[in-house]
């Protein structure tokens, strides 16, 4: 990666980290409700892959741990936070919540709450790209446990059969909620599972963004060149519990510490410092500026935004009736 890109991504990753930590605080303050799944620890995965892809051009879809993926695709952090606050200005107008961030304009095709749900949707998006003949690709970010859903296999089969332009990124953080991968899954290394469908696959460290980037570049090239799907497994770790009601009793503090020594932000920061492209003081400034941005813009916007109107409860369930009359009533407009 170019130095300038690395410096930019470092700043983005700091934003992603601080954004999520701020969500945690807002949840404690009861500004955010429902389920909240946070991303700290895994930042190099989304960032490394999307640096190799084209955010805003390629279609991205993921599960419920979706804030950072949305922001990386170009969603406005203010609108993502406003969504968590349930506000009308939120990316899903307050209807979706944390697990359902959408920004179709930025080709972020959503967060979904059912594990494995996005697999076939990603294949469907890729099928549409293929039919239209565009140069976009579909990228599906999911966890390790998601691969145990039946629909994983159905999707892999069709994606391979039709040579769909879809990149499956498995963020293997070793746990599905409180169940370690050894207890839930017959194979720990997920990339092995797609061999049955002749889908090429790769696995690498998910903490060092430059490693992720190099592997992702090859994966993205493969898919964009019309060779069909690719499966990329990134070995990573989430620092916080699965969601907010998780005291992490299923793993040791030592294990967590070990992973924190390979923190994706610190790895990149220290490398840039070593390369003479950054000083510690500059990094601290980035952190301060990020916090100020989150407080003065993101949080302020979310706090001050209006709630949806109760009269609009049934809006968005179906298409606006007026626009559909010929088909609904059988009468010409």
């Amino acid at each position, binding site marked *: 990666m170019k130095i300038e890109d690395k410096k930019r991504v470092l700043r983005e990753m700091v934003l992603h980290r601080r954004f999520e930590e701020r969500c945690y605080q807002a949840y404690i303050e009861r500004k955010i409700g429902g389920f909240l799944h946070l991303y700290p620890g895994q930042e190099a995965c989304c960032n490394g892959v999307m640096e190799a892809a084209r955010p805003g051009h390629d279609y991205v879809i993921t599960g419920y741990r979706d804030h950072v993926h949305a922001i990386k695709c170009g969603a406005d952090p203010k609108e993502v936070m406003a969504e968590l606050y349930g506000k009308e200005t939120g990316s899903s107008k*307050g209807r979706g919540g944390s697990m359902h961030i959408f920004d179709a304009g930025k080709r972020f095709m959503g967060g979904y*709450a059912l594990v494995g*749900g996005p697999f076939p949707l990603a294949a469907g998006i890729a099928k549409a790209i293929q039919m239209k003949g565009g140069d976009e690709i579909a990228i599906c970010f999911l966890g390790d446990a998601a691969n145990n859903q039946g629909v994983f296999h159905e999707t892999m089969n069709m994606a391979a059969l039709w040579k769909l332009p879809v990149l499956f990124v498995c963020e293997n953080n070793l746990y599905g909620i409180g169940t370690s991968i050894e207890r839930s899954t017959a194979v720990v290394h997920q990339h092995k599972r797609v061999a049955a469908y002749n889908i090429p696959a790769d696995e690498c460290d998910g903490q060092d963004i430059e490693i992720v980037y190099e592997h992702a570049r090859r994966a993205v090239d493969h898919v964009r060149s019309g060779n069909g799907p690719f499966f990329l497994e990134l070995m990573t770790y989430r620092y916080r519990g699965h969601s907010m009601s998780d005291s992490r009793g299923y793993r040791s503090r030592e294990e967590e510490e070990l992973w924190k020594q390979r923190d994706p932000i610190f790895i990149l920061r220290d490398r840039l410092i070593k390369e003479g492209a950054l000083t510690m003081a500059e990094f601290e400034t980035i952190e301060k500026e990020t916090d100020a941005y989150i407080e003065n813009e993101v949080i302020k916007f979310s706090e001050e935004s209006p*709630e*949806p109107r*109760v009269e609009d*409860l*049934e809006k968005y*369930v179906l298409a606006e009736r007026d626009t559909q009359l010929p088909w609904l009533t059988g009468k010409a407009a």
Partner: protein
Amino acid sequence: MANIMYWEAIQRAHDEEMARDPLEIMSVNFAWLAMDQMFNSAAKVRYMSGGQLTAPCVFRSAGGAAHQLGAQHSARMEKVFMGIAGLRVVTPSNPKQAYGLLKSAIRCDDPVFINEHELMYNMKGEVPDSEYFHPLEGSEVARAGTDVTLFGYNISVHWCLKAAEILDKQYGISAEVVDLYSLSPLDRAGIKASVSKTHRAVIAEEDEAPVGVGSEVIAIINEECFFELDAAPVRVHSALVPQPYNHTLEKAAIPDHEDVVKAVLKLFGKA
């Protein structure tokens, strides 16, 4: 009698009935993924095999709006399950039922779906100290009354009880509350008996209409005791929307005891 929580009552039944292990589906929203196994296999295998095979399995699962969990984690699915031949559906409204219905479901040779509610696990109630099997069929009069019957199940039984209290104290209306803990089959005789006594009916459910317990109970009333009615029965139910995340919209989408009170007052021409 022991005063224990709903989830503790379930745990006790699990512990006592080790031989047949009930299957817990964390949330009914995820049950869609197992529909083929539940509907096409478990519910039909006895019939398809001319009685040679059985599927004496128990599926427990929680549904309902549990504070801003959003569209994909708040569904109610009882209306789907209760329309399937070969499947029994029960839905406990208190710890005693949670314990006793699970015990009976495990012993019963039919597949049984037990519909729980996310918000009820910490609810406390009396459970007999000795082993107790709650009947899988029937209904229970949770509060006797003379002027109107409030039909509820699971969480809506509690809205009905609260509404009955208010109706009694503030409006002098005596409401009977009938707990429809069995959704399939529904208790035709119990529904008929209560409506024949009170001549008025309100059915409260968290599920959205159309299609559901409300429409089914009204159909039964029409079939069993239409000429006993003094007024057209009323349904209280959720709006037909995927559950909104926003707190205010969520509250607007689902009913509560106040909506039950309003429905009754309307029935009596008082609102």
